[in-house]
């Protein structure tokens, strides 16, 4: 039983820094292909070197997601996924592995559950916090209050198009890390992770970010290594979902192990 271990994202990133490496963050949608398999796949990610889990809540209108994640999350909804199941899934994951679990969710699902109730249920399940792709700090007063009350992490997004003023605001509002969107676009594997990511991470550092993790388009160990040359963490999503969709839980574990090798290189 590891449920009492503190699972803040910040503590994991600090530990990775002490080990002179970056953090690997792995995304999978909860409830895909089934609730049980999504739990097993998440556990397999951690057992194969993922440091932080990002569990996506399936949503009917995922505007930030590309075709792979859309297909998986819509399938989860079609087979009857209900939002409260995420808490049961997190409890089962955190019983088995020590990595912190962030929930990636579009805001309406939290709003309809009740922001405070969602925070309480997340704490009770052993979850670490939320990544909110369609919630900007200006609209987040209720969530900031609830996460301050409960100590949950809150990850806001920063984009290459964000002004310096907005980056400062994202840094101030975030706890755990700031999610640096590598490129202008939606989720999905890309051959080149935009050089805009490097610039954005530098700008976030100047804005005072304790930690920045880069997501969107990262799918190989080489890309993980490149990104961790300048960022505190690399976030991989669609490639893992694709592996799960195509070849099942064992394949996800293998891909995670391969990606994790990208975290071991000396940092630039």
């Amino acid at each position: 039983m590891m449920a009492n271990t503190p699972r803040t994202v910040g503590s994991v990133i600090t530990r990775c820094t002490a080990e002179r490496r970056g953090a690997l963050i792995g995304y999978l949608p909860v409830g895909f292909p089934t609730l049980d398999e999504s739990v097993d796949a998440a556990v397999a990610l951690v057992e194969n070197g993922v440091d932080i889990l990002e569990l996506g809540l399936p949503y009917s209108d995922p505007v930030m997601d590309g075709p792979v994640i859309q297909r998986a999350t819509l399938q989860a909804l079609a087979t009857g996924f209900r939002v409260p199941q995420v808490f049961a899934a997190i409890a089962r994951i955190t019983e088995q592995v020590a990595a912190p679990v962030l929930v990636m969710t579009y805001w309406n699902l939290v709003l309809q559950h009740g922001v405070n109730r969602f925070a309480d249920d997340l704490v009770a399940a052993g979850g670490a916090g939320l990544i909110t792709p369609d919630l900007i700090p200006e609209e987040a007063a209720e969530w900031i209050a609830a996460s301050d009350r409960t100590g949950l992490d809150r990850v806001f997004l920063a984009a290459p198009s964000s002004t310096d003023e907005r980056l400062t605001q994202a840094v101030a509002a975030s706890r755990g890390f700031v999610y640096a969107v590598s490129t202008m676009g939606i989720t999905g594997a890309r051959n080149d992770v935009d050089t805009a990511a490097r610039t954005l991470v530098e700008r976030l550092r100047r804005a005072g970010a304790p930690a920045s993790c880069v997501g969107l388009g990262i799918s190989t160990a080489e890309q993980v290594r490149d990104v961790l040359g300048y960022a505190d963490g690399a976030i991989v999503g669609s490639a893992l979902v694709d592996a799960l969709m195509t070849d099942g839980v064992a394949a996800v574990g293998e891909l995670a192990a391969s990606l994790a090798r990208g975290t071991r290189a000396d940092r630039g």
Partner: protein
Amino acid sequence: MTLRTQTGPYFGDFGGRFVPESLIAALDELTVAYEAAKNDPMFTAELAELGRTYTGRPSIITEVPRFAAHAGGSRVILKREDLNHTGSHKINNVLGQALLTKRIGKHRVIAETGAGQHGVATATAAALFGLECTVYMGEVDTERQALNVARMRLLGAEVVPVAAGSRTLKDAINEAMRDWVTNVATTNYLFGTVAGPHPFPELVRNFQKIIGEEAREQVLALTGALPTAVAACVGGGSNAMGIFHAFLDDLDVALYGFEAAGEGVDTDRHAATITRGRPGILHGARSFLLQSEDGQTIESHSISAGLDYPGVGPEHSWLASIGRACYRPVTDAAAMSALRLLSRTEGIIPAIESAHALAGALQLGRELGPTATILVSLSGRGDKDMETAAEYFQLTDAAVQSNAAPLAPPTRGGALPTVAVSPTYPLTTAEGDHS
């Protein structure tokens, strides 16, 4: 502060910006450009000139006494946005946003469309201004509005059928937003209705409010008084906000929005967002929404593609919440019946969307009685709906021959609507003539 001067990002508790951070810079850029443009006499003059020489503004009003005879003897006056170039009110907004696109120096526009009217209007403006244009349209809608797809392509636009989700307007908006997130540096999103993130609800309303401004003057000139009530259909709600806005502070003028009730608000096949929804977030704004207990958007249904949307503009949610406007459901059957009634009594074939407002006006007229004057937003013409109408009323030669009685009543869509329409031709005015 008056109701008319309300601005975004919030209308009461409704509105805001619930979008990815990647879009904020573009929304800010649009907000700043619009604020500058609306105070720039050159911009307003150019837009007004386009209205006069391209759209055909001001659109006329038409009193329809033979139709009104079925509306409890009330006077019924139509605001004829159906006569605009491209056939609906959508052109008003699109010309404004296309001018803004030029002003911010972008060369590509994207749009979502349901019925195809906003897509056609956007493709038209893109052709006029030499902009690249991509229109996202749900696959269900590209099938039921094939003629508008052809129109857009003829105008030089790329039409992308969207196969995701419910394959209707909501999914077309999702896909347009994904395009915008990716191509925001070169692309402006010409949002079609008074929904979406700030500044769209305010910006689109301001480009559409000319409908009500003209109509208010025209009705005053015709009747010597303001109307008793204003009626408009509401999907996202742009024609309704456009005609309501000038009357918001005329508290004696009742405002009625008519939502698509599809097969009935007690079935699961309707699009009556304010009647049956609850507040939530969709497409960047907090507003009324058809959603599950969990907050998943529920697929809407309407015979009218333009009203087949599970959300509604935040200003409507606000007007409903403060009681300034009243929103009522109108079924497919009632709308189709009103469509046929206007066609036969007045020689005007309305869009199925607008027919919801007409059906609502028939009901209102019976409630308000012969002293009432009802202004109806005839937001679009019915040409695009002929295939749907032909099937619904069995109007093709094959259908007519297989049915003994020509122009027989509909064989689908359930019982005849509450509005009495004689099912046989010639249609007789059973109720007292309007005097």
